[in-house]
């Protein structure tokens, strides 16, 4: 790596400044990045979206491949950052090998890391593998994973927002006759909605929003990676020294070289002579002899033990107390509580995951949501329209008793008894379950739907007679009333107590 060729201004940046740097990179090298993206990523996406019948499956597969796709802009940006913007041919020649090498680790490992944008550039550009790569990733993540997670969340939100807006725009500009029928969707039947060509439009909108946000996300990760490296390895300091050295060399070129060399030679000789005179012969060591590896390690340890290298860093994090940690000295022992909370936390997490999976499967139509509808057992009604309909409140032979009342001149009592008795029987047999707001006609309607035709006809007649008595203060004619009294037992005999 030729650091002096870097075309970016290296300096310690905050996370937000790294996002700015990503946007600047996209502005500068957008052509090369999107050219590579169009050739390597878009065809794969289109293939999945159009060839895989189930949209959710296509989106899931593409979601799994995202870390691999994001290597494309990182590759182009990494070359461009060191002064050589790669042509499409160069990208197509060099990148596929790296993609193939990293395909498995991207899907299996990086897919599940929310901070992957920070560490995938290391895997691509440094070429380390195995344990070495894990150590390297840990170093990078030490203080940069927070910004990487934040960037992932931001670009995910941006992608969703762009997608929704794009779909709405598409919807607004769709002529009415071409718009998909969303009636089943509004009725909650997700399986019946046929979006037709609109689904293709939605997929293309998603692809466009992902192309923008995916590239930006990858570049943001690359910017964070550069920032971490310059922080860890002092790239910015190194570059400053190199520039300083270059300037000094320029100054020296202007002074007469011979005079300087002569002066330096004289000074050096004089000092050398002085040292030789003062040093015993036995203690003289050859200057060219390099220290052994062991000595070098010892010297390094001595240097590192110096106070200048003694840095103390305090980090605070939550953790569960260790068993027996504080219980012995009389303090409150929270171990059990801690483990219970831990268990509940895990249980909640598992339940949430199961719920999400079930929801996804349900929306995909792979499983059906069947809730056993249990019949509601409402308490039996004792009063309807203010009438006591409990069986024990009624006489043994209702028809005969009503006839007696009618002949005695109590028309309202007689019709009321017939109606009350009919309600009581119908409620007891389940043919009627009146609501508080139901009127007499509503009850007749319920019976018409739930009971036999004959009994419905009779109940309607009883209701009419009852209405006359109840709301007009008049009497039905004798023949009608007596016929109802006589027929009552015939229609409700089976249930008669």
């Amino acid at each position, binding site marked *: 790596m030729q650091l002096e060729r870097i075309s970016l201004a290296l300096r310690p940046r905050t996370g937000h400044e790294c996002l700015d740097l990503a946007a600047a990179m996209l502005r500068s090298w957008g052509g090369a990045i999107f050219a590579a993206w169009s050739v390597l990523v878009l065809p794969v996406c289109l293939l999945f979206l159009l060839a895989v019948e189930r949209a959710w499956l296509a989106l899931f597969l593409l979601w799994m491949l995202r870390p691999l796709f994001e290597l494309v802009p990182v590759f182009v940006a990494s070359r461009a950052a060191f002064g050589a913007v790669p042509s499409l041919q160069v990208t197509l020649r060099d990148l596929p090998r790296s993609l193939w090498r990293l395909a498995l680790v991207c899907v299996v490992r990086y897919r599940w890391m929310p901070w992957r944008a920070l560490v995938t550039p290391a895997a691509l550009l440094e070429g380390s593998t195995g344990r070495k790569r894990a150590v390297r990733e840990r170093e990078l993540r030490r203080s940069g994973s927070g910004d990487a997670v934040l960037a992932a969340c931001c670009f995910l939100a941006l992608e969703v927002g762009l997608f929704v807006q794009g779909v709405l725009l598409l919807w607004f500009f769709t002529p009415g006759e071409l718009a998909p029928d969303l009636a089943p969707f509004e009725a909650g039947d997700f399986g019946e909605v046929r979006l037709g060509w609109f689904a293709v439009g939605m997929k293309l909108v998603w692809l466009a929003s992902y192309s923008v946000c995916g590239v930006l996300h990858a570049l943001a990760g690359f910017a964070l990676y550069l920032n971490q490296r310059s922080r860890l390895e002092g790239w910015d300091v190194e570059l400053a020294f190199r520039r300083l050295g270059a300037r000094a060399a320029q100054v020296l070129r202007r002074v007469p070289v011979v005079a300087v060399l002569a002066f330096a030679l004289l000074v050096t000789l004089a000092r050398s002579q002085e040292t030789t005179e003062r040093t015993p012969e036995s203690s003289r060591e050859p200057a060219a002899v390099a220290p052994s590896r062991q000595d070098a390690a010892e010297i390094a340890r001595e240097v590192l033990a110096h106070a200048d290298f003694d840095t103390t860093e305090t980090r605070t994090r939550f953790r569960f107390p260790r068993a027996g940690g504080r219980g012995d000295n009389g303090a409150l022992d929270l171990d059990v509580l801690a483990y219970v909370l831990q268990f509940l936390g895990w249980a909640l997490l598992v339940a949430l995951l199961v719920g999400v999976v079930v929801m996804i499967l349900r929306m995909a139509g792979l499983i059906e949501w069947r809730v056993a509808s249990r019949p509601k057992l409402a308490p039996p009604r004792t009063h309807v329209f203010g009438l006591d309909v409990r069986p024990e409140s009624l006489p043994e032979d209702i028809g005969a008793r009503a006839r007696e009342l009618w002949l005695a001149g109590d028309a309202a009592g007689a019709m009321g008894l017939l109606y009350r008795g009919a309600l009581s029987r119908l409620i007891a047999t389940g043919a009627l379950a009146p609501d508080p707001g139901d009127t007499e*006609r509503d009850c007749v309607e319920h019976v018409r739907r739930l009971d036999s035709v004959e009994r419905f006809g009779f109940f309607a007649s009883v209701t009419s007679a009852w209405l006359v008595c109840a709301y*007009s*203060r008049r009497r039905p004619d004798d023949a009608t009333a007596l016929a109802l009294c006589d027929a009552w037992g015939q229609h409700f005999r089976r249930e008669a107590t």
Partner: protein
Amino acid sequence: MNEVQAVVVTDEELARASERVVRMRTEVGRVVIGQAEEVEQVLLAFLAGGHVLIEGVPGLGKTLLVLALARTFGGKFARVQFTPDLMPSDVTGHVVYEGASGTFRLRRGPAFTNLLLADEINRASAKTQSALLEVMQEGQITIEGEATALTPPFMTLATQNPIEQEGTYPLPEAQLDRFLLKIVVDYPSLDEETRIVELVTAGRTGGQLEVSAVQRVCTAEDVLALQATVARLTVLERVREYAVRIVRETRTWRGVAMGAGPRGGISLVRVARAKALLEGRGFVTPDDIKAVALPVLRHRLTLAPELELEGVTTDDVLRSILQKVEAPRE
């Protein structure tokens, strides 16, 4: 129990009135295909002596309905197309100076009729709307300080288009309250529409409305007698109380910004009486109240914006209220 009883309607009178009303409905139904519910509601408002606001898209037979109804009792019919430049005098009439005789003469407007169809009432300015509503309320027209009573029976059927709101002057709630019923006319079913097309196109040229099939079954005086009969039907205290409870519930119902006023309860009982007569009964039951509650109350409620945003209609709210309010108890 304090029952306000008018002169009791005899069985013969009831039977005669009921038979006449049923015949009127049948005659109107000869030319107005389908829309049985709408025809019945217009008839109810007519019998109750009220006015009707009809909401529906153009071309659903509103004019035909009014024309047919006028023909059943030999009444006069007038139609006014409300436009933004319509002046009150275009509806009520005005006084003109006649040069030949040197006198002022009253030129009566279309409001001097029995059935007035005010088409797209919300397109006229508030001033013209108010003039018409005053006619509806007072039953008389004042021109140049001189009041002239309208010849009864008089009923206004105002229409408004639910779709086009551009350039309209929506009726204020206080004015809406003066309409006895608000009827929502919907598109006919496939069979009904096929019959309409067949009836209108068979052996006819042009698109004139044909109501010659409608027979005259009574006179304007008979209609007044019917209205008087309706007003005397028995309504028990608890049935009136049921109507009032429904109206009061609209004021406290969650999501209703403004409920119905006392005029709502009055209208409920008036229309329920007409409904009872139409069914051949001399008394009103809670079922009658419930059956007419939607057209009587739907224009007297104002829903809160959040409920409207959720797509809830006043009819939905009223159905919930009717389900909740307990029917009268013996």
